[in-house]
C-alpha cells in the first residue's frame, strides 16, 4: 500500500514539475518558440484525448479529427455567426464534442479492431464532408477567421502572446490532471483491462461496452476542448482540420511520445513539431540547393525512433528504467 502511495506521490511530483517547467518556459523562451509552445500545448491536449482511447483502452480510431473539429466548429461558428462570448463558445465546442462522441461511440463501438478503425474513419470523413457541404456557413476548405475583438475573455485579450500561453497552459494542466485522475481511477484500470483482454474483463463482471463508451466520450470531449481552444486562441477554422491527416497526427504524436503514458502526448507533439521545423531549418541553411523535402528527414528520424524506442519515447523509458511512470 505504501509503495502505491509512493508511486502516486512521485507521479504527482513529476506532473507538477512538468507544469512548473512549462510555466517557467513562458519567461525564457524566445518569441517564436513561445508562440509555438502555446500551439503545442493546445494540440497536446488533442493528443491526450486520443491517447485515452488508443493508449489506455486499446481502441485505434482514425476519425478523431471529427472530435477536434466538433470543438473547433462548435466554438468558431458560435462566435462567427452568433457573436457568442468566449466562455459560451468554448462550452458550445465541448457540447459538440460530447454529443458527437456519444453518438459515434454508441454506433462504432459495436465493432472492434480493424472494423472500428474503418468505421471511425468513415464517420470522420462524413464530418469532414459536412464542413465542406455547409460551405455557406463554414466557407469550406477556405475557412473563416475570428476577429481579434471577439477573442477576449473578460479583461483578457486572448490574442496577446502572454495571455494565450497562459490560457493554453491552464487548458493543458486541466487536461493532464483529468487524464491522470481518470487513468489512476478504477475506471482507468478497467480501460487498461479491456485493452489487455476484453473477454476476461467482461467475464469479471464489467460492462465493457459502457466503459468503452465512457472512454470514447471522455476522449471526444478532451479533443473538442483542444479544438475549441485552438480556434479561440489562434482565430482560424477550416475544413483541413477535419481532414483525415488530423486523425493521423494525434496517433503519430501518441506513438512517438509513448502510448498509455500521460506525458507521452506532450512529448510526441513537441518532438514532431520540432522535427519538421528543424528539418526545414537544416535543409534551408546547409543544403539550400538540394531538391529534398523535410519529409525525407522526418521519415528517417521516425524509422530510427521506432527501431530504438518501439513503444514510443516514454513507453520505452518506462519499460527500461522508470517503471512507475504513469
Amino acid at each position, binding site marked *: 500500500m505504501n509503495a502505491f502511495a509512493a508511486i502516486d506521490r512521485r507521479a504527482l511530483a513529476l506532473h507538477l514539475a512538468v507544469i512548473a517547467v512549462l510555466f517557467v518556459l513562458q519567461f525564457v523562451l*524566445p*518569441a*517564436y518558440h*513561445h*508562440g*509555438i509552445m502555446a*500551439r503545442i500545448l493546445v494540440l497536446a491536449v488533442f493528443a491526450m484525448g486520443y491517447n485515452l482511447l488508443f493508449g489506455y483502452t486499446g481502441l485505434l480510431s482514425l476519425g478523431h479529427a471529427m472530435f477536434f473539429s466538433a470543438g473547433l466548429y462548435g466554438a468558431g461558428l458560435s462566435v462567427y455567426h452568433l457573436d457568442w462570448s468566449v466562455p459560451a463558445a468554448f462550452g458550445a465546442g465541448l457540447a459538440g464534442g460530447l454529443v458527437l462522441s456519444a453518438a459515434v461511440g454508441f454506433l462504432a463501438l459495436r465493432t472492434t479492431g480493424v472494423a472500428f478503425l474503418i468505421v471511425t474513419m468513415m464517420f470522420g470523413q462524413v464530418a469532414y*464532408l459536412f464542413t*465542406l*457541404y455547409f*460551405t*455557406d456557413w463554414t*466557407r*469550406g*476548405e*477556405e*475557412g*473563416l*477567421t*475570428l*476577429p*481579434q475583438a471577439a477573442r477576449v475573455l473578460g479583461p483578457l485579450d486572448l*490574442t496577446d502572446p502572454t495571455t494565450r500561453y497562459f490560457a493554453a497552459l491552464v487548458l493543458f494542466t486541466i487536461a493532464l490532471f483529468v487524464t491522470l485522475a481518470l487513468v489512476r481511477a478504477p475506471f482507468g484500470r478497467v480501460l487498461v483491462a479491456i485493452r489487455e483482454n476484453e473477454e476476461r474483463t467482461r467475464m469479471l463482471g464489467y460492462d465493457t461496452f459502457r466503459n468503452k463508451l465512457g472512454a470514447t466520450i471522455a476522449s471526444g470531449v478532451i479533443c473538442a476542448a483542444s479544438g475549441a481552444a485552438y480556434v479561440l486562441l*489562434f*482565430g*482560424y477554422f*477550416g*475544413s*483541413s*482540420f477535419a481532414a483525415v491527416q488530423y486523425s493521423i497526427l494525434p496517433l503519430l504524436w501518441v506513438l512517438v511520445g509513448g502510448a498509455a503514458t500521460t506525458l507521452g502526448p506532450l512529448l510526441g507533439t513537441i518532438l514532431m513539431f520540432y522535427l519538421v*521545423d528543424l528539418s*526545414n531549418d537544416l535543409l*534551408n541553411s546547409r543544403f539550400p540547393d538540394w531538391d529534398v*523535402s*523535410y*519529409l525525407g528527414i522526418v521519415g528517417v528520424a521516425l524509422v530510427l525512433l521506432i527501431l530504438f524506442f518501439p513503444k514510443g519515447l516514454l513507453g520505452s523509458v518506462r519499460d527500461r528504467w522508470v517503471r512507475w511512470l504513469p
Partner: protein
Amino acid sequence: MTGKRTSLLLPNKNLTRRTALKGMGAAAGLMAAPGFVRYSQAQSSEPIRIGFQAHRTGIGAAYGRWYERVTTAAAQAINDAGGINGRPLEIVTEDDGTDPKRGAEVVEKFANQHKTDVVFGTLFSHVVVGSAPAAGELKMPYYVVSEGYHVASGSLNRYVFQPGITDVKAQVRAVGPWIAENVGKKITLVYPDYAFGHDHRDKFPERFEAAGGTVVGLVPIPPTETSFTRYFPQIPSDTEVIYHVMVGPGVLTFVKELGEFYGSSGPKLFGFIDSLEAVDINSPGLEFLDGSYFWEGMPRYLQPDASDAVKAYRAAVGIDDNGASVNDPKDVSTSAHMFGCWETLYIIKEAMEAAGYQGPADRAKLVEATEALTEFPEGPEHPQGLKVFSPMIHQSFGQQYISQVSGGKLNVVHTTSIEDGMYEPEADYTSMPL
C-alpha cells in the same frame, strides 16, 4: 548659479558632472559595441528581408515550385537594379506545406525568428486565410498572390494585401460578357462543391446575364469525387457552353470523361486554366480541349504581339515560348498565376521606398504607403499589364486574357479591359486600426 544651470541641462539634480561624463562615456561605448554598430548599419546597408511563404510540399507544390523560381528571379532583378532604398533584397523561404496551420506558424517564424521585414506568398486560399490572423496579430504586412476573393471581401485584416494579382470575382465578371457574346448564351457551370467552386457559381452569373446570357444548369461536383461521367447527364441538353473550373488531380479524368461523353458534338467549353496549370495542354486525353477557351491570368505561350517587358520577364523567370522551363520542356509553368510574385515584389519595393522604410518599426507606415498606391503601369515591373489598386479592399484590378486551344497551343483571342472586372468595394480596411 552653476547648480541652477546644471539642473536645467540635467533633469536629475543629484547628477554631478562626473556621473554625467560617465554616462556619456558609457553611451559612447554602447555605440561602439558590435550590436549597436550593426543596428546603425541596418539603417543603410543591411538587406531588406522578405519572408516567402512557399508551397514546397502538399497539394500546392507545383505552384510553389514556380512561385519560388519567379520570386528568386524578381529578387535578383531588383537587386541588380540597386535593391530597395539602396538596400539589397534577401528572400527567406519557409515551406508552408500547403497547410493553414503551418502557414500561420511560418508567419510567426518570419516575424519572431527570422525577423523579416514583411511576409510574402502564397497561393492556396486556405493557407492565406489561415495565416492572416497571425499576420494581423503580429502587425506584419502580408502580401499574398492568391487570387481568392478573401482579401477583397474584407474578411481578413488591415495587414493583408493582394496587389499583384486580380481576384476571382473580378476574373469571372470580366469574362462573362465575352462568353455570352462570342461562345454561347446558354451556359452550364460545372464546379467543385466547395468554397472555390461556389465563388464561381455565385459571382459569374451577374455580368453574364446582363450581357444576355442565361445560366441553364448548375452541376456541383462533390469533393473527393474521382469519376465524373455520372454527373454529365445533369447538363441540360440546350446547353451551348460548359463552364468548368475543376481543380486537383481529377481534372485530367474530368476532361477525358467529358470528351468520351460528348464525342465531337458537345457544347463549347470555357474553363479556367487553374485546372491545367503546370499540365501540358498536349497531354494524352486532353485532345478534346482543342477549340475550347480558357481564362488565363497571363498567357502561357509567347504571343506574337508580346511586349519587350513580357519577353524580358519570361527570360528572367526561365520559361520558353511554350511556357515550360527552359531547362526541361516537360516542366510546364503556372504562368497564369506566378507573374503575381514578380509584380508583388515590385509593389513591395515601391511601397517601401514611398514609406522611407527603415525597419520593422516602420511597418505601419508601410501599410499606409501601400494603401496610398493607386496604379501600377504596364512595363518591366508589371509585365502582365496595367493594374488599378483599390486601397479600401487591398486588391488590384487588371486585365484578363481569354485564350483558345488550337494547334496544341493556347492562343490569346481576347483581352478584357480592367473595367470589365471592376466592382464596387464591399469593405474598407483603411478604417481598421493599425
